[in-house]
């Protein structure tokens, strides 16, 4: 079937005409609103985290407009607007979309794309225009050693992820000495591993196994077989989502039992238990935030910190409304939302949207929100935010550490896989 050439060209012409007619035109410039721009990752390899971040940001923005009444500048309440484009998780798009946000949409601040790499890719553009660049999804310490002046981080640095876990186990079981480290070979996971190793050695643990595996690995069997042979008491590891699920599942497949298993990123998400069922019982994971932490205005008062933002529950319902789906927000959503709250506080404290003033205000700022406490050092790196440790018990996630935030006691040692499968 050959298509009539006239029809072919008609099709092409109408397509082009359609594009031209709907070509997005610059917004009218006026400061009747404060605009935050985001180079989002709504598709491509960071789609999942990107979607969560998007929901968290939208939820926070909605809270600011509805409950907070807008951003207070010069005695007036100004509405907050959220503009976002999809980078497809690709670095080429990041710079062009960021620039569009700055020059065409005239945003007052930028939210970086998810992941350390993409955050880095966009940093020079933010520098060039001198606009505050909020890092909500890039945990690499290296971002802050490059000399960028406008980056402000909300997510905590990688090196602190597993230190709390080690403290926890040490306190309960001084007899447990052997630690196995098995992390994904990516910048972020390796910074976790290095931090964990240093802390473990400080506490007197014995590192009996230390290996990495590549991103996108599909079978961890050889690595786990080698791990099994060292008979560790505690296993720490992980990297991202799919490998965390794989890790747990294959430990079960190979019948490797340990007294404690803690996996970063994956273990604290609801999808983890859905995928693994009873095999996930007793598995722990460090998190920036979990649905269930008990940060509240009272706690803020006790700590002497200002409080801003929705309560835990409010955030969850705002999030679901923003995405239009019944999905529980995870820490990506929370940290992105917290970044927005930080910005609002910064603007209000500076009483202006001028980037340099806001940036300075953010440097001086410290506060508490549903996400926990927040404080950055002079390079913009986040230093105020504590991690929590979460553990699956009976299909629920309980926060077992730190003591001030916990919702349940730790289950230690972790039941063996034989016990876990027998339970059903």
């Amino acid at each position, binding site marked *: 079937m050959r*298509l009539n050439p006239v029809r*072919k060209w008609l099709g092409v012409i109408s397509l082009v005409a359609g*594009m031209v007619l*709907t*070509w*997005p035109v*610059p917004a009218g410039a006026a400061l009747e609103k404060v605009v935050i721009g985001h180079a*989002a990752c*709504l*598709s*491509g390899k960071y789609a999942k985290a990107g979607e969560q971040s998007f929901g968290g940001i939208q939820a926070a923005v909605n809270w600011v407009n509805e409950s907070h009444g807008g951003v207070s500048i010069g005695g007036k309440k100004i509405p907050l607007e959220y503009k*976002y*484009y*999809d*980078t*497809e998780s690709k*670095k*080429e*798009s990041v*710079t*062009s*979309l*960021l*620039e*569009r946000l*700055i*020059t*065409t949409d005239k945003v007052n601040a930028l939210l970086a794309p998810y992941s350390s*790499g993409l955050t*880095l*890719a966009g*940093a*020079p*553009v933010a*520098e*060039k225009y001198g606009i505050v660049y909020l890092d909500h999804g890039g945990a690499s310490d*290296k971002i802050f*050693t*490059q*000399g*960028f002046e406008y980056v402000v981080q909300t997510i905590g640095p990688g090196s602190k992820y597993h230190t709390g876990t080690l403290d926890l186990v040490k306190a309960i079981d001084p007899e447990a000495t052997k630690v196995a480290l098995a992390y994904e*070979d*990516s*910048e972020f996971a*390796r910074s976790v591993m290095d931090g964990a190793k240093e802390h473990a050695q400080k506490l007197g643990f014995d590192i009996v196994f230390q290996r990495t595996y*590549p*991103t996108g690995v599909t079978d961890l069997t050889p690595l786990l077989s080698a791990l099994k042979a060292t008979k560790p008491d505690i296993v720490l590891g992980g990297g991202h989502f799919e490998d965390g699920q794989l890790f747990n599942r294959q430990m079960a497949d190979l019948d490797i039992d340990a007294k404690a298993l803690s996996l970063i990123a994956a273990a604290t998400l609801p999808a983890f238990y859905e995928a693994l069922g009873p095999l996930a019982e007793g598995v722990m994971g460090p998190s920036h935030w979990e649905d269930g932490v008990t940060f509240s205005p009272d706690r803020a008062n006790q700590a002497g910190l200002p409080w801003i933002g929705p309560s835990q529950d409010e955030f969850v319902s705002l999030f679901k409304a923003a995405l239009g789906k019944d999905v529980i927000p995870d820490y990506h959503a929370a940290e992105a939302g917290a970044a927005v709250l930080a910005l609002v506080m910064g603007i209000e404290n500076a009483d202006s949207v001028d980037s340099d003033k806001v940036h300075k205000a953010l440097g001086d700022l410290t506060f508490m929100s549903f996400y926990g406490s927040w404080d950055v050092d002079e390079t913009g790196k986040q230093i105020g935010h504590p991690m929590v440790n979460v553990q699956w018990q009976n299909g629920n996630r309980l926060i077992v550490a730190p003591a001030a935030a916990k919702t349940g006691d730790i289950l230690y040692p972790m039941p063996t896989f034989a016990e876990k499968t027998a339970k059903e």
Partner: protein
Amino acid sequence: MSPSRTRLERYYALLPVLGAYLVLFLIGNGQPDMWQLVAMLAFYCALGQAFNLFLGMTGYVDFGYVAFAGVGTYGMAISISHLSAVEGIGGWAIAIGLLLGATMATLLSLAVGAVALRLRGAYFAIATIGVNEGFRYFVEGARIWNGSDGIIFSRDLRLIFGRETATALSTFWADVLVLLIAALAGVVTLLFMRNKIGYALTALRADEDAAKVMGINVTKYKIMAFITSAVFAGLLGATAWALKLTYVYPPDVFEIHYTVEAIVIVMLGGAGTLLGPLVGGLVYGLSKYWLAVTLPGFQLLIFAPLLLVIVVLFPEGLVGVLKKKIGNRPLGKFIV
């Protein structure tokens, strides 16, 4: 007509190409909010022109093409991160970076070519995929160049140039270089087309065995095209990825989807034509941008069926179709 006039006339086709790049530069430089968009378009055009040197002219599909851009990126990254300690090195760091990137790409292409160019068709395509993936895992596995940590060198760039210039380099000059690379690739394409190598490649593209029988040294010309195309990719990686973004992670630069994008751009515009990759790059880049802005999250869903439509209905690409219509008229000598 005197010989010299005909000689020059052969290169008239360069005018629209160089003109287009000049116009792009002027638009980007003139309008305050357009530069990064122009930069992105320039990247795609350059990618297409460079890839066209091989794919377009020989018809061979190098599925591992992005590896050359990848090593080019490393070349610049290594140069800047190591030379930042040298006093007053200034612009030489960039020049050395470009040279290093081009050299590494050449070396890799020689190694790959020695193996893969003996193969044809689908076997060639798969062999080249093997190269890209194998090289990437080798870098990560053997931990060369920092392995999967990659190299982040914004700080080194600032040390060498100072904050203002470093930022300008990343946000402006890197892109100017990309435009230059695209233009240069276009010039080389026409040079190929108007000389012996072009005829040889056209012959082998049509029927390699027949060309061999006629005495054309297909291997020599294939290798020439392959290396040239690889060098441009290396230069592109050194500028558009390294200098502009100031970091390199192996999984980000050895990403197979860039090769696919290059294939799409070349095919969309018209493989083997001079204007083709330029047109393809512009159309592709603009469509992506438009989709990203108006329908965020849905781009690929729209893009995939469009791709299918193009492949099935317009296999000779936009410029190819244009050539058929206008090729014989006087204007035709500009549409090559």
